[in-house]
């Protein structure tokens, strides 16, 4: 999605590439295994409030193709509050951009203290 054709910087978005303390949107892209869940929680705690999370792709939303695997976390929303689910395997870049536009509408509507 970050590529020149669907340039997200038009929306004021930049890949933080690991700088969790300055980012406020966490896109969970792909499967969360049990081994990775600890690290995802650590990242989520490090992000400053208000922060939002998008579950991108089937594996992040519901385990998708690997829903009956022994090392997969099927419901990520138990660990991290997810704001928007983007189905698709992987979803199209436009689907993710539309989801981010939808998230911005949700942010405008709700007050900050609700976070």
């Amino acid at each position: 999605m970050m590529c020149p054709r669907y340039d997200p910087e038009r929306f004021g978005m930049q890949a933080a590439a690991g700088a969790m303390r300055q980012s406020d949107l966490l896109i969970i892209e792909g499967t969360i295994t049990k081994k990775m869940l600890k690290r995802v929680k650590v990242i989520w705690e490090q992000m400053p409030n208000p922060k939002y999370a998008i579950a991108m792709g089937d594996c992040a939303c519901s385990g998708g193709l690997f829903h009956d695997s022994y090392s997969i976390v099927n419901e990520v929303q138990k660990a991290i509050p997810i704001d928007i689910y983007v189905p698709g395997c992987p979803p199209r870049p436009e689907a993710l951009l539309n989801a981010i536009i939808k998230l911005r509408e949700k942010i405008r509507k709700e007050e900050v203290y609700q976070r």
Partner: protein
Amino acid sequence: MSAAAAFWEGVKHMFKKRFTIKHPYQEHELPDGYRGRHLLRMDRCIGCGICAWICPEKTITMVPAANQKTYQQNPKNRFPQYWYVRCCFCHFCTDYCPTGALDYTKDYDLAEYEKELIIWSPERLSRVPEGHRGYQTEFHGRAGVSHVLPTRED
């Protein structure tokens, strides 16, 4: 090959045609046969459940049609219901459907705030997106149980 040549290579691209598609205002034109959301033709579905059987993630559950509508070709009154949060869009269901009741659409925007909203009932599936051309027979596998596909001279 000096660094200046490399730098000039990048600068040269400033004068070329812009590559970015301004997404919400310009749309990338999708080819026919793009594997997006499914389209269900409720007058063709016989409720056999082959789509539910072949689905790798068990996304499809067979549910009765809403508001007691009955279809004579579907005695058991069972229609596929998709939970798109689990669907991998491989479209084996469309290929294996013996009566060709399922079809490809170019609709890919399915994001929702809650997971339960992404459950598509048969009625919601049978809504035809605008600009949908019935290319169903051209791409449709009509494979029956074993997947022999029609030959098509290029």
